[in-house]
């Protein structure tokens, strides 16, 4: 795979906008629906040759999505996962490879889920539920057996990647280096795909999910174990925006221990409950 293609693929994979995909799917499905529900085109055939039509639909479903982002991504997931990881592995090492692997996972899940969601809404539910077989409903069930919990928070200066403050349940790896590493990964991903207005917002690694909150001069990463539900996510962003407003509204001139311990202190006050 050429470098350009690789980056294109990654661009699609890492930075694609969920809503865009969703919208895309919706409108594609609208189109298909309109065509299928048009009696002149399909109606009678549908009724008469229902079984054949199911097959037709199944077969052509992908075709309708032939040029669709989702299909492209799915295809890429199947065909180039290893290649991409292989090519990228030496670039930023273990962390990004894990990150990409899990991005693939997440996307695969995301797409399956979106498809199923769209498919199962409103008229679609009625018209298609019986037609589109093979939809694994179990896939849609997000397990709730692991409640989410904050493991570590890092506040990192955007440009320099210097650590401004941290909160950690159990001190692990050197946070200064992690801060730099994350900043480099972020910069690499954002730069390579040249999406100026698109910041990387989530990284998965091992059993953690790293949520990234971008602010103007700094960003905040929260690593969470367990399964993040909407309520938790919402609570977390509210807290984070509050924190930013209250404690990060200063102009940072120098990164020194006074600053770092002050911010860290505030972090643990805010998130430790």
């Amino acid at each position, binding site marked *: 795979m050429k470098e350009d293609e690789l980056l294109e693929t990654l661009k699609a994979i890492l930075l694609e906008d969920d809503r865009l995909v969703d919208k895309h799917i919706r409108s594609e499905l609208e189109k298909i629906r309109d065509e299928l529900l048009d009696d002149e085109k399909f109606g009678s055939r549908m009724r008469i040759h229902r079984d054949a039509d199911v097959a037709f639909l199944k077969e052509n479903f992908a075709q309708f999505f032939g040029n669709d982002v989702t299909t492209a991504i799915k295809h890429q997931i199947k065909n180039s996962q290893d290649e991409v990881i292989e090519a990228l592995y*030496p670039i930023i090492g273990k962390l990004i490879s894990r990150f990409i692997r899990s991005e693939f996972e997440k996307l695969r899940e995301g797409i399956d889920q979106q498809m199923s969601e769209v498919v199962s809404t409103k008229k679609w539910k009625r018209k298609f539920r019986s037609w589109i077989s093979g939809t694994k409903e179990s896939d849609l069930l997000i397990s709730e057996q692991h409640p989410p919990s904050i493991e570590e928070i890092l506040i990192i200066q955007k440009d*320099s*990647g*210097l650590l401004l403050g941290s909160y950690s349940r159990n001190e692990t790896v050197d946070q200064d280096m992690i*801060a*730099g590493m994350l900043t*480099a990964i972020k910069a690499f991903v954002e730069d390579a795909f040249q999406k100026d207005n698109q910041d990387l917002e989530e990284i998965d690694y091992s059993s953690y999910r790293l949520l990234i909150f971008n602010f103007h001069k700094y960003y905040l990463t929260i690593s969470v174990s367990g399964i993040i539900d909407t309520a938790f996510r919402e609570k977390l962003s509210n807290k984070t925006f509050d924190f930013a407003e209250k404690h990060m509204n200063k102009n940072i001139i120098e990164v*020194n221990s006074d600053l*770092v311990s002050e911010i860290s202190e505030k972090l643990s006050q805010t998130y430790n409950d």
Partner: protein
Amino acid sequence: MTEFLSKKVILAGPLAVGKTSLVQKFVYNKFSEKYISTIGVRIEKKVIDMDSHKLNLIIWDLAGESTQKKSPQSYFLGTNGIIYVVDISRPPTFLNIQAEIDYLKQKVPNAPIIVIGNKADLFKKEELEETVSIIPVKPDFVTSAKTGDLVNEMFEELASRILDLQTS
């Protein structure tokens, strides 16, 4: 008085001049003969004891070929100091040195740049001066990552230049 200060430093220069070896010599005090080609960037950290406080150097070991093409531009942002390395045994690594340094100066206007000629161990003492004299920009240090010669000194010099710049 604050206990420590954190600073971002980048290590730049062509491929295989010894950037990674220099930082690893400095950080872990070891040297590997194995060819480690770094693509992208490797983050290392070294705490230096200065007179009044500690300096927390976060070192971005950049992959070379050319500073101007390979690395994402944002790698240069927020940089407090630069070490630019060439290989004194390979003239192609320093033919372009002036342009590269000018580029870095323009990219990172307010950071001190230290120029390093590395792999001093490949020359006899008496050859060294002549060898170094053909480098278009005079190196601040002629180091060896292999023997460790002047490696600590170059990082310490950079550290104090960063602090000087800050207090001036």
